[in-house]
């Protein structure tokens, strides 16, 4: 059945302008009113893979808390007061390695329509000092911009706040959806990039590398700050050559001197997440290379250090040390 064939609407969410906007995008979808979004989202025994083939939308009102402290494993790029927030849960793409698989009980996409309350929570937090915020962690906001314009809402919001810095992370090529906005210094557009072969094999539904590079180039030309995220680095056959040529391709299109910064992260995941995803995904060979479980229960490649070292050296051909994190 087609994507978003059904839209579940929490009773109290229905009147919000964002809910009306989303509904207007899908006039043919069946609308089902629900008392509480968790009555749908948290049902027992949901089948993530089967749902992913026919994802539904859920419109809901988020209750406190709105902001969460940034997790240890995530790079803070030297910013104190690192927080993330989730105005949307789950993603329209379907990457084999995505940590969201099975993180929530459902593959359906929840859009929290009370965005103004997220903004108020940020304002409250700003009273006690500057804030570095990631609102595109448990989703890909730019990819969803055609459905719910949250990337632009966050950009506009950040543009008129002191002390706020926002990272909008994406795998999309949907820059045109925000190209009309004036670049905002407080916002970093962070693009996750992978070699063509990794995209083709393991990033189902996400746009090809070339399309992402074209989007980044346009964003840089317009004056946006762009971060390149080489994360997760996935090991594939002949990886040294693949990743070397990949970086050459990236920087043949993107002017390295304009890049704000970059980060590197070899694939790693908590043991529990790894187990859960391996169980869910018998249809991928993404974990075919030997992994080890390191101290602290983190699973990664046995030659993680070598992969990182190799990639760093090659990236360092284009970007100076101080611009490379991770």
């Amino acid at each position: 059945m087609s994507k978003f064939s059904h839209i579940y609407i929490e009773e109290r969410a229905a009147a919000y302008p964002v809910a009306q906007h989303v509904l207007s995008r899908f006039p043919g979808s069946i609308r089902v009113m629900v008392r509480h979004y968790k009555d749908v989202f948290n049902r027992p025994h949901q089948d993530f893979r089967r749902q992913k083939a026919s994802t539904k939308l859920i419109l809901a009102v988020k209750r406190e808390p709105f902001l969460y402290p940034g997790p240890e494993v995530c790079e803070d790029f030297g910013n104190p007061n690192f927080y993330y927030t989730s105005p949307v849960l789950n993603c329209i793409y379907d990457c084999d390695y995505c940590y969201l698989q099975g993180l929530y009980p459902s593959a359906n996409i929840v859009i929290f329509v009370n965005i103004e309350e997220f903004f108020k929570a940020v304002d409250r937090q700003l009273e006690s000092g500057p804030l570095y915020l990631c609102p595109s962690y448990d989703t890909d906001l730019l990819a969803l911009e055609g459905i719910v314009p949250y990337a632009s809402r966050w950009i506009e919001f950040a543009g008129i706040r002191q002390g706020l810095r926002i990272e909008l992370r994406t795998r999309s090529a949907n820059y045109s959806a925000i190209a009309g906005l004036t670049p905002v210094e407080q916002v970093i557009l962070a693009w996750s990039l992978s070699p063509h072969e990794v995209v083709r094999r393991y990033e189902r539904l996400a746009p090809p590398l070339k399309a992402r590079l074209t989007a980044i180039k346009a964003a840089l030309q317009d004056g946006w700050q762009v971060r390149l995220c080489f994360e997760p680095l996935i090991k594939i056959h002949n990886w040294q050559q693949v990743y070397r040529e990949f970086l050459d391709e990236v920087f043949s299109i993107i002017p390295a001197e304009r890049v704000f910064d970059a980060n590197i992260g070899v694939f790693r995941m908590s043991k529990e997440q790894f187990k859960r995803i391996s169980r869910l995904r018998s249809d991928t060979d993404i974990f075919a290379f030997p992994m080890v479980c390191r101290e602290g229960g983190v699973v990664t490649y046995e030659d993680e250090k070598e992969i990182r070292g190799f990639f760093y050296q090659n990236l360092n051909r284009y970007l100076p040390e101080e611009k490379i994190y991770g």
Partner: protein
Amino acid sequence: MIYIVTALPCEASPIVKRYDLKRDDACRHFPLYRSDDMFLIVSGVGKMASAIATAYLIAQNVKRDEAGGEEGLAIINIGVCGTLNQRYPIGTPLLIHKVIDHETGKQYFPDILIEHPFEEGSIETHNDVVRREDVLSGRVELRADLVDMEASGFFQAASRFLAPHQIYVIKVVGDYLDVVDFDRQRVAQCISGALDAVDGFIKQVEGLCRVEGDVLTQDERLQLERVKESLRLTVTQSHQLVDMARRYKLRTGRPLPDFSEFAQTRVKVKAEGRKALERIRRLLLYE
């Protein structure tokens, strides 16, 4: 495997006939009918009765069902219902996307992941018969398109065992809450009229719920065993080999490549085995 729960014998009989189900006399507690790929139970009226029969059916039969156990089956509550809405002609079958329990206010949602021929609607399950005048006088307030006496009990019981894409409710409009004399024949006619659509739906559901058996054939498993032995693989390496082989088949849809070269190698030290496994890995990942 499809399980069907109906409240009344007259709802069951057209289905029993259509699918040539045979009465299972071994079941002393409920009228139970079966074929190789379908079970039908007649629960009796009311949500408690429906819940008990549903739980009984699933718990009794899952262990007997070899095609994927619980994972490979789907359960459908089929029956007639009432509505106040004359927009639905008598005999209209609806696939339910929301079940409300009138007494508890709780709501239940199946996962509708497949194309289907039905109009969709919501249903409210009541403990007592709801009459037109109860609603018109305001004594009873309806919160759904349809009214019945089983769906919420059925759904609650089924969700204890199954995923929401395995649980469905199909209700056929039988009256406008104005029944004076209960007419079994009319009910049977309503169900009969919906069975072509139900049949198409069942096929779709079977496709959705199908559980693939092991992708490796018996021969392939034997071949891998021989490779494990001749390369003297450790337990972990053996698991990796079988896992890689399965993923290769799932990803490419092709049979495994020829491993006879590896099956014939006799390695003397474990390092050689490790090297050979790396070659196999390359073969399975990139050939």
